[in-house]
């Protein structure tokens, strides 16, 4: 019987603002070759494949049909999930736990630079009857939420700007990151207003790139050698799509997804047990709101925790040492993929200049972006 599932290989292209030289399929091919090489396995030996993609982002109806070739999945059990990489990870985990699959490869990518009308594309996600007719920027949904979050938690725009400074600064040590920069709070608050209190630099910019990971059951993982990174907990949750009925201050989808993952991992005290975390910061305030949802601190205390340095590389609970979405880039459905990549590198001790010392348990959390209220959490360990 399968007791545990591990990540036994991972590969990536890294992340760039544009990738004009390669198609999205070639991006995936590069990540897949690296992942299979890392795992020491051929795609012909892999039992099943799960990809994460969304038709509108890809520019194809039924985009899933365009996934098999570049991951070695032709004429194999393959499926595409219209969700984040973490949803694919959950599916791959469950496939292996059934005992029917010894290994599963999972994939997600972003070729955002190919979407010519990316603002409109994001706007099409708004309710066509109640919200879309106003033809507002979808960032306005985040602006509304940021105002309410700041009001309920007594958080300031300056404190939100500090998230941007920290994460883009962290990206300076991450060779995969597209948007490393040494910024000041003044730079953030002085950038053009998009939907106040959101400024341009509060918003993660899109990047291209692909990640593929190979999962295996405990026996196969031990046989392959290397350092298996175990999936100890996973959870996911979706709130109502009706914006008008939502709680605008709290990220309930993240809290409930985390509770599910913590329960599975047997973690009662996240702040004491989680060594580091990669969490969704697609808008600056989101990192703070998500820290509270993940129970790293009480409501209204995330900004204080940030300012105390507790979430920096040297702090007690480093958050977004990769640079997060602000520093690495907003990768749409691959958002969870770069977080898992960072967890694996840190837990293997391969994170180079940004290595956090003595880490055993890492947490990844994603949100599917405006206007969704969908989140997922995964907890990985190297023990």
């Amino acid at each position, binding site marked *: 019987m399968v007791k545990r599932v591990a990540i036994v290989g991972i590969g990536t*292209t890294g992340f*760039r603002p544009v*990738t*004009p*030289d*390669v198609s999205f399929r*070639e*991006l995936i*091919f*590069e990540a897949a070759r690296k992942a299979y090489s890392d795992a020491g396995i051929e795609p012909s030996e892999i039992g099943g494949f799960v990809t994460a993609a969304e038709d509108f982002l890809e*520019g194809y*109806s039924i985009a899933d049909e365009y996934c098999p070739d570049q991951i070695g999945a032709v004429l194999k059990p393959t499926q595409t999930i219209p969700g984040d990489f973490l949803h694919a990870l959950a599916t791959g985990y469950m496939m292996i736990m059934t005992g029917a699959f010894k290994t599963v490869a999972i994939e997600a990518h972003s070729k955002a630079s*190919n979407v*010519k*009308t*990316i*603002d*409109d594309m994001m*706007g099409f996600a708004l309710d*066509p*009857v*109640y*919200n*879309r*007719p*106003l*033809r*507002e*920027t*979808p*960032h*306005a949904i985040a*602006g*509304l*939420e*940021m*105002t*309410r979050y700041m*009001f309920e938690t007594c958080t300031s725009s300056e404190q939100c700007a500090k998230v941007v400074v920290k994460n883009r600064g962290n990206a300076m040590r991450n060779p995969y990151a597209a948007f490393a920069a040494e910024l000041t709070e003044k730079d953030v608050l002085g950038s*053009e*207003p*998009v*939907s*106040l*209190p*959101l400024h341009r630099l509060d918003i993660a910019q899109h990047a291209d790139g692909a990640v593929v990971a190979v999962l295996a059951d405990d026996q196969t993982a031990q046989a392959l050698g290397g350092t298996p990174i175990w999936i100890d907990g996973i959870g996911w949750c979706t709130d*109502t799509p*009706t*914006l*008008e*009925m939502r709680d*605008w201050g709290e990220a309930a989808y993240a809290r409930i997804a985390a509770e599910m993952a913590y329960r599975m991992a047997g973690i009662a005290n996240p702040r004491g047990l989680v060594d580091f975390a990669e969490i969704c910061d697609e808008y600056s305030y989101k990192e703070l709101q998500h820290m509270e949802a993940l129970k790293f601190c009480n409501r209204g205390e995330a900004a204080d925790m940030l300012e105390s340095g507790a979430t920096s590389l040297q702090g007690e609970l480093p958050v977004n040492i990769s640079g997060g979405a602000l520093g690495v880039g907003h990768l749409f459905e691959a958002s969870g993929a770069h977080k898992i990549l960072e967890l694996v590198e840190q837990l293997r001790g391969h994170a180079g200049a940004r290595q956090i010392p003595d880490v055993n348990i890492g947490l990844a959390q994603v949100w599917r972006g405006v206007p969704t209220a969908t989140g997922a959490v995964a907890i990985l360990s190297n023990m």
Partner: protein
Amino acid sequence: MSISEKITKTTTPTYWEGEIPVNYIYTFGLAGEAFFRAIKDKGTFLATRCEECEVTFVPPKAYCDRCFEKLEKYVDVGTTGYVETYTVTFRNMDGSAKKLPRILAMVRIDGTDGGIIHYLQGIPFDEVAIGMPVQAILKPKAERVGGIEDIVGFGPPKR
């Protein structure tokens, strides 16, 4: 990131431009039709209420998303509410800059758990506050067609 041979000219990468022209109609449904008909004909907002869960839905839903019961009773909840949250938007949906920024608010309709996302009108930005009372401003009846744009926005409540 080329696969086998390095591309040495930045003008080399080529692409094909395509578009996906798809058009839709979006059916209001029973609850949506009741809601927009009330705005158009009576100038008021309708809600559905789940007595079991003590939740009042605006816009109305034909079912309760908590206990999963069918909701068939519509109640007139009027057009007043308060600012739950707000933002000042500088861009349009296509990313282009607005000529003038606008204040967009989530207005919680009084006595309900829902509301309407729309513009604030006649309220200067430095006077907007969470919790401030507002009332819907509707287009003149003859101009209303049954849609969210029958609402011009929300302004100070009429006495």
